[in-house]
């Protein structure tokens, strides 16, 4: 039975453009997750820096409140809801006409920014306060010490957690079909739709997700190892 189902799948995959759909889906999945992560890192670092800034003046206090609000909004609602709100509520209200993949990238970036800011904040707080004092004492500004000393060490500490965030993003891309984007899930669903045989396509889909995640894990392990060179002990 399985053999027949596999043949049916293979037929669609090779002869009826299935492979193109899958490549398109894979491309979108990776685009959304990767660019989303990059946007998230930028937003997250910015928010985390605001959160750890000494609350010495009113502007910082207001920015801090905004950052807290931002994080609570994006952590407090499911990403599907954010996707739908952005696509079906905010965009029409603003008169914007964006394609679904760019929208997905933006929403994934905004969302992961909230999570990454918390990860980054914990990472910054985990760096010994003496590092900041050491920097300030040799006449470096707060900002320079932050970017040259604190954040590089924080990033090293949080790399495993960031890897998890990336893996989560990859897997979460399967919700972008809600706004009509073609990701891996949609691609395999389309293949199944050809002959109403979903068993093999979905198994294949799972396999591809697993392979993606394993590859990412390996890359992160490699990065951790190369960043650990400053930890070598006597």
């Amino acid at each position, binding site marked *: 039975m399985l053999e027949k189902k596999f043949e049916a799948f293979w037929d669609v995959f090779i002869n009826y453009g299935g492979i193109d759909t899958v490549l398109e889906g894979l491309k979108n999945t990776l685009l959304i997750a990767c660019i989303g992560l990059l946007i998230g890192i930028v937003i997250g670092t910015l928010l985390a820096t605001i959160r750890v800034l000494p609350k010495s003046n009113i502007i910082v206090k207001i920015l801090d409140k905004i950052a807290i609000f931002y994080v609570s909004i994006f952590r407090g609602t499911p990403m599907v809801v954010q996707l739908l709100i952005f696509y079906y509520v905010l965009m029409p209200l603003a008169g914007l006409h964006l394609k679904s993949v760019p929208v997905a990238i933006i929403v994934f970036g905004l969302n992961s920014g909230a999570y990454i800011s918390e990860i980054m904040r914990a990472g910054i707080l985990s760096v010994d306060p*003496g*590092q900041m004092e*050491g920097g300030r*004492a040799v*006449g470096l500004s707060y900002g320079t010490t932050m970017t*040259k*000393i604190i954040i590089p*060490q924080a990033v090293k500490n949080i790399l495993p957690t960031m890897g998890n965030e990336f893996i989560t993003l990859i897997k979460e891309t399967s919700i972008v079909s809600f706004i009509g984007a073609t990701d891996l899930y949609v691609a395999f669903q389309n293949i199944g739709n050809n002959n109403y045989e979903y068993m093999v396509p979905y198994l294949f889909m799972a396999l591809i997700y697993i392979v993606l995640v394993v590859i990412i894990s390996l890359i992160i392990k490699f990065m951790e190892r190369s960043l650990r060179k*400053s930890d070598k002990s006597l």
Partner: protein
Amino acid sequence: MIKVCNLHKKFGDNHVLRGIDYEIQKGEKIVVIGPSGSGKSTFLRCLNLLETPTEGEIYFDGEQINDKKCDINKVRQHMGMVFQHFNLFNNKTILDNITLSPIHNKLMTKDEAEKNARDLLERVGLSDKADAYPSQLSGGQKQRAAIVRSLAMNPEVILFDEPTSALDPEMVGEVLDVMKRLAKKGMTMVVVTHEMGFAREVADKVLFMDEGIIQEEAEPEEFFNNPKNPRLQDFLSKVL
């Protein structure tokens, strides 16, 4: 060179410094001793504004540094500090630790800064550690490297905050040696320490702090042999 007027520091309800007036002259070696919690480290950290005074003024070369108009980053480039826990940058090699600020603040070119750093490292016996990371060094080596880091800025004064307190006993000597050599060269130094021998040998003035004020100030001979303040007498009887 450094003038402190009516310095107060509160942490919440905790009144740590209760009015300190003191003046440090160029070339002087001041050693500050006192029981823990007496405010001596806080006093030192106020001098380069790592702690912001609650009240009072601090002047460095005639400029009030706890004033909003003062660029503290510039001031700190002339005021070195050596910490109990070294505070070397863990993500940088020893050479980068030393050259980061001179290069970043455009006090030296990269080549000048590196040459200067290597010269200084050689003088403290660490020339082979330039490319090592802090985690690869022993405590004594880290502290010597930290001293070099502050020296590389050509500071007018170096503040030492219990520089040997976190070291294994056999490493205390190597750090004190470097400090004594600095003192001989005429560096202005303010040292918070528990090393009475160092105070006796190097200090021009020894200060005894307790309960947030300077209880006694004297030259080491007088300070150790003829203490006047009963708290100091009590303190010395316990530590000597």
